[in-house]
C-alpha cells in the first residue's frame, strides 16, 4: 500500500526515544569509556611529548591530534580504529532486536512509517556518536588549553572542526553497514559477528592484502627496486586498492586536514616538486580540497549503504 503524506512523519518521536535509549544504555557507557580512556592515553602521551619538545609550531593544537608517542598510536589513529567499533556496537541490533522482541509490528501500528522508523533509528545512532565525538573534541581543545597554554587560532579550530565532520561521516559508514546487516540477519549475534569480521578485514587484513594484489597486477620493476624506489604503477595500484577501506579514506583525509603541510595524498613526480617551497602550510581551503575526494567517498558510502538497508527493510515482511 502506498504511503500517504510525508515520509518523515514520526521521525522526531523515534529519534528522541532512540537517542535517550542509546545514551542511557550500559552498552553505550562501556563503548564511550573504551574510547575516552584510550583516546585520553594517546592525548596524554601527545601532550607530554609536545611539552618536552617545544619547537615553534603555528599549529600546536593540531599536533595534539597527530603526534604519536610509542607504544601508543596517535589520537587520530586510535579514533580511526575505535569509531567503527562504536558504530557497530550501536548499530548491529537496530532492527533485528525489534524483530526478536516482536515489537516491530507494534511500533508500526502507530502512525509512524517504516521510513521514519529506519531514519529515526539511524539518525539517533549518528547523533549519539556525534555527541560523544564532540565531547571528545572539546576535551582535546580544553586539555590543550590547560596543558599547552596556547589558545587555538581560527584556522586550527576550522581544521579540527573538519576533523569532527569527517569523523562523523566515517562513523556513519559503519553505522549504515551495521544497520544493513541488522536488517539482513535476523540474529543480532550473526549481524555483530559479520560486521566485526568486515571491520577486521578492512582495518587489519586489507592494508596487507592490497600491496600483494597490486604487485600481482603490476609486478615491481627491478630497475626501480635497484634504486630503492617503489615502482610507480604498483604504488598507484596499492593506493587505489587501499582506498576501498573506509579506514584508509579516513586516515588520508585526516592527514590532509590535520597536517597543513600535506600537499598531496597520491604519489608525487619529481617535476611536480621542482620549485616547490617545502614545509609551507597550505591554506585551509586547499587542505579541504585535498581531503575532499576522501570525504566524498565516506559520505557517498554512508548514503549508499543506508539506501541499500532502506530498500531491503521496505521489502521485508514485518509480521512475524
Amino acid at each position, binding site marked *: *500500500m*502506498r*504511503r500517504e503524506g510525508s*515520509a518523515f512523519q514520526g521521525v522526531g518521536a523515534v529519534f528522541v526515544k532512540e537517542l535517550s535509549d542509546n545514551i542511557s544504555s550500559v552498552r553505550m557507557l562501556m563503548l564511550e569509556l573504551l574510547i575516552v580512556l584510550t583516546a585520553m592515553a594517546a592525548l596524554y602521551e601527545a601532550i607530554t611529548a609536545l611539552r618536552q619538545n617545544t619547537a615553534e609550531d603555528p599549529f600546536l593544537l593540531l599536533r595534539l591530534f597527530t603526534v604519536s608517542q610509542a607504544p601508543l598510536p596517535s589520537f587520530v589513529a586510535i579514533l580511526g580504529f575505535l569509531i567503527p567499533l562504536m558504530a557497530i556496537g550501536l548499530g548491529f541490533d537496530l532492527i533485528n532486536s525489534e524483530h526478536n522482541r516482536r515489537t516491530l509490528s507494534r511500533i*508500526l501500528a502507530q502512525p509512524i*512509517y*517504516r*521510513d521514519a522508523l529506519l531514519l529515526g533509528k539511524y539518525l539517533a545512532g549518528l547523533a549519539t556518536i556525534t555527541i560523544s565525538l564532540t565531547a571528545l573534541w572539546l576535551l582535546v581543545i580544553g586539555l590543550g588549553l590547560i596543558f599547552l597554554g596556547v589558545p587555538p587560532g581560527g584556522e586550527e579550530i576550522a581544521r579540527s572542526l573538519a576533523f569532527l565532520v569527517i569523523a562523523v561521516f566515517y562513523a556513519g559508514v559503519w553505522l549504515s553497514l551495521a544497520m544493513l546487516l541488522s536488517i539482513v540477519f535476523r540474529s543480532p549475534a550473526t549481524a555483530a559477528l559479520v560486521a566485526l569480521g568486515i571491520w577486521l578485514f578492512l582495518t587489519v587484513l586489507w592494508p596487507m592484502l592490497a600491496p600483494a594484489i597490486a604487485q600481482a597486477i603490476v609486478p615491481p620493476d627491478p630497475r626501480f627496486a635497484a634504486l630503492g624506489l617503489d615502482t610507480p604503477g604498483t604504488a598507484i595500484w596499492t593506493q587505489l586498492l587501499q582506498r576501498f577501506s573506509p579506514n584508509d579514506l579516513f586516515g588520508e583525509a585526516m592527514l590532509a586536514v590535520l597536517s597543513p603541510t600535506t*600537499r*598531496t595524498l597520491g604519489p*608525487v*613526480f619529481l*617535476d*611536480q*616538486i*621542482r*620549485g*616547490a*617551497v617545502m614545509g*609551507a602550510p*597550505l*591554506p585551509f*581551503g*586547499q587542505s579541504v*580540497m*585535498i581531503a*575532499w*575526494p576522501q*570525504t*566524498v567517498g565516506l*559520505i*557517498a558510502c554512508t*548514503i*549508499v549503504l*543506508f*539506501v541499500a538497508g*532502506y*530498500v531491503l527493510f*521496505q*521489502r521485508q515482511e514485518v509480521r512475524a
Partner: protein
Amino acid sequence: MRALDVARLVVAFGLAVPLAIPSAHAAEPPRDIKGLYLMTDYPAVTIRPGTTSNISLRLQNYDLGPQRYKLSVEGVPSGWTATLLGGGQPVAAAMPAPDSSVPLQLRLDVPANASLAEQTVTVKAEGQGSEATLPIVVALAKELPAKLTVTSKLPELRGSPKSNFEYTLTIKNDSGRSLIASFAAAAPQNFETSFTEAYGTQELSSIPIDAGQSKDIKLKVRPPSAIDAGHFPVKVTVNAEDASAQTEVALDVAGQPQLQLSGRDGLLSARAVAAEQSAIPVVVTNSGTAPADNIELAATAPSGWKVTFQPAKIERLVPGKDTEVQALVTPSDKSLAGDYQLAMRATSRGETASSQFRVTVSTSTVWGMAGAGVIGVALLLMLGAVARFGRR
C-alpha cells in the same frame, strides 16, 4: 719636539756610521802618506739651534806605531756642549792601530738661544810626537728645508659609480733627512678614501721615506653608489714634520642605470590556479643615474610552468621612474597545491635585477564540484528509493 729631533738624528747617524766603517777598512792606505789624521766627511755643517747633532769623525793612523792619543775639543762657544763619543760613550783618548782608523762622533748640543753667527769648533788629538787637528765650521740656521713633493701619474680617472678609482701617488723626500710622511685625502661627502701600499692591501696613514728617496702609494676612492654623474675633485695632502705637499686628483663619474624588480607595493607573493593563467603585477624601477634601455624580462619557473610578460620588453626607463609589467603565469596542470618559488629577472645591458616571488597555487575546484555531484547522485538515489519503496 726636541726629543723627537734628537731621536731622528740618532737614527740618521746610526745609519751613516755602518756605512763609514767598511770604507775605512777597505781603503788601501797610499804608500806615500804617513802620520796621524783626524778626518770627517763634511767639515762644515749647518745645525738648527735647540737641537743635538752628531758629526762623525775618524782618527786615521797611517804607518805609525800604536800610541795613545788624547782627544779634546776647543773653541766651543759658551752655552754649547760638545762631547766626543766613541762606541756610543764619551771618550777622552783613542788608540788607532797602524794603518787603521777609530770612528768617533762629535755631539754638539746647541742651545735654542744661540746666536746665528758661524762658529768654528776644533777637535784635537795629541800623542807623543804627533798630533792632528780638525776645525769644523758650524753654521746655524733657523729653518732647515724639509722638502716634499707629491705627484700623481694619472690624476684623472673615469668610471661608473660602482668602479674603484685607484690613483698611484709618488711622494718624494727632497730634504736631507729621512721623514715620516703622513697623508690625508679631502673628498666630497660620503666618498670613501683609503691609502694602501703600491702593491699591498694594508691600509696606511703614514710611511717613512729616506732622504732623497721616493715611494709610491695608492689612493683608492669609492664614490657612493647612488651618486649622480659628474666631476669630483679629491685633494691629497702629504705632511711630514714641517713640510707639506698637495696635489689634486679627480673622479669623472659616468652615470649608470640600476634596476630593481618587485611586485606592486613591494609584494613578493602571488596567487595562481593550476593550469589557469593569472596576472602578477611586477614593478621595474630604475634607481640609478642613467636611463636604462631595452630592459628584457625573464623568469625561471618550475617545470611545466608558462611565464610571459606583457609587455615583454621595456624600451626606456629614465632614472627615478618605475613602470609596471604584467607577468602572465600559468602553473603546470600537475602542480601541487601550495607554495612555489618563481624567480623573475629584468636585464638591461649588463645591469640586472631579480626577485624571488612566492606563488601560492590553488588546485582547480572542478573535481570538488564533481565530488559534490557524487554526493548529489547518492542523495537522488535515496530520494528515488524513498519514492519507489515508500509504504505503510
